[in-house]
């Protein structure tokens, strides 16, 4: 049995994907990494809002004409709309329209319609796998797609005694780290990318941090970030960074994103209802976390020698 810790890294979807393997050979690690890279690329090719050749771009430029889509696209957009309904439209994949109008991603030179179409105008045809968008509607399901790709890669790693996938800060761990120990994962300081603010010990868990400090800029004098509450078209305030731990990275990422979008009150309510361990940094710097998170927490000073 191999006991080495093996690291592999590749780049996809504009993010770095770092894989750590325990209990397999170098050659196996190469093979598994190549498989994972293929999985990520296929999601990127299909769902990128930054690629003119993607299926998503075809859908986003369909201008009200029904589009036959792949089963993968159909499922992802359906899931997005389900989350939109659950959050009364705070989460809405139609956010792509606003981001595109800021010049962030495609379609290029996009001008926002006076009335921004919402998730409610997306029409699904279950029989023919067709999606019809409203004219000028641009979808951005990226937050969901990344974690779905991580889950798919995780399934491809099935059978490996221990592994961790870290895709741009979204983490999936399975099995254990060396010597049967759990994985120690730190949470980045939203104000300083080189600093951390907390750490947890997890095994067989997904962990995701969503923050308003990642993609952001300014539009007509108003600061924006990529997480926009579509109920009012404004960027959400209240939570700077939300970390959620769940069995899958998909759940963790979805809940972290929703927490930011819903804001401190509704966000915390939703997390409490679902019982996921969470760690939030509010805009004023205060921390909100639950007992489930504290149970996994390890003091940073015990991890730094």
């Amino acid at each position, binding site marked *: 049995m191999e006991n080495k810790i093996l*690291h*592999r*890294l*590749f*780049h996809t979807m*504009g*993010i*770095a994907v*770092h894989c*750590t393997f325990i209990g397999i050979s170098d050659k196996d690690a190469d093979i598994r990494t*190549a498989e994972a890279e293929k999985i990520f690329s296929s999601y990127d090719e299909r769902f990128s809002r*930054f690629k003119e050749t993607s299926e998503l771009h075809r859908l986003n430029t369909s201008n009200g004409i029904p589009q036959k889509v792949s089963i993968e696209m159909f499922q992802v957009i359906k899931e997005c709309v389900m989350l939109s309904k659950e959050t009364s439209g705070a989460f809405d994949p139609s956010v792509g329209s606003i981001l595109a109008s*800021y*010049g*962030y991603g495609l379609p290029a030179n996009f001008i926002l319609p006076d009335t921004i179409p919402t998730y409610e105008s997306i029409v699904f045809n279950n029989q023919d796998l067709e999606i019809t968008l409203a004219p000028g509607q641009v979808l951005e399901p990226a937050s969901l797609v990344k974690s779905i790709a991580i889950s798919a890669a995780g399934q491809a790693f099935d059978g490996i005694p221990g592994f*961790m996938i*870290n895709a*741009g*800060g979204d*983490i999936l761990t399975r099995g254990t*780290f060396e010597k049967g120990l759990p*994985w*120690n*994962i*730190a*949470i*980045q*300081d*939203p*104000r*300083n*990318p*080189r*600093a*951390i*603010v907390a*750490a947890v010990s997890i095994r067989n868990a997904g*962990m995701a*941090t969503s*923050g308003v*400090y*990642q*993609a*952001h*800029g*300014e*539009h*007509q*004098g108003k*600061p924006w970030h990529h997480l926009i509450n579509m109920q009012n078209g404004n960027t959400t305030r209240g939570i*700077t*960074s939300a*970390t959620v731990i769940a069995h899958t990275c998909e759940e963790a990422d979805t809940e972290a994103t929703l927490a930011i979008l819903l804001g401190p009150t509704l966000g915390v309510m939703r997390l409490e209802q679902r019982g996921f361990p969470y760690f939030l*940094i509010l805009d*004023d*710097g*205060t921390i909100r976390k639950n007992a489930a998170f504290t149970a996994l927490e390890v003091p940073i000073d015990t*991890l*730094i*020698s």
Partner: protein
Amino acid sequence: MTPFKKNLQRFFILFFSTLSVGIIIVGVNRAKKVPTLGEAPTPLTPTPDQGTAGTPGTMVAGTTVSITGKTYQTPYGNVTAAIQVKDGKVVGVTMPQVPNSPPSIYAESYLVDQAIKAGGANIQGVSGATYTSLAFKSSLESAIAQAKTQGQTITTGTASTGSSAVAPGPKPSVPLQYRGDDDDEGEEWDD
């Protein structure tokens, strides 16, 4: 074969084998010199004179001017941001250059978070933001700074006009507690 041709043949063999050895050495050195994930200095080194913009003094009220920021290197490629300024206001932000994937052969050298490793930390991963966005932010800042030097008055006071993110700290800092106002070097990302 004449002696001259023989000598010429020898010369070519020697010349090309020396050349290929040279290329291999240069290649290996370059491959070795990949920046580590945990260290910011390399990713945040701007390539000189990449910033371009319209000629100063040609600003006309009501027109939109596009200003391209410096290109920042990340372990995965270059990142360049551009802003569109109209009447002293940033009306758009674009990231025209998106990093390409490096060959996976470099993977082993990247060992994630060398900085944390160097500090002897027992941490296997960090959940949070990505490098691309960090470089994007720096490039954005340089575009805004350029807009100012060209006589554009940027009226909005976001912190992204600050330059502190470009100067990396000497080593990773690990605050034990998160407080709102104790970190002078930390940039406000929001307001």
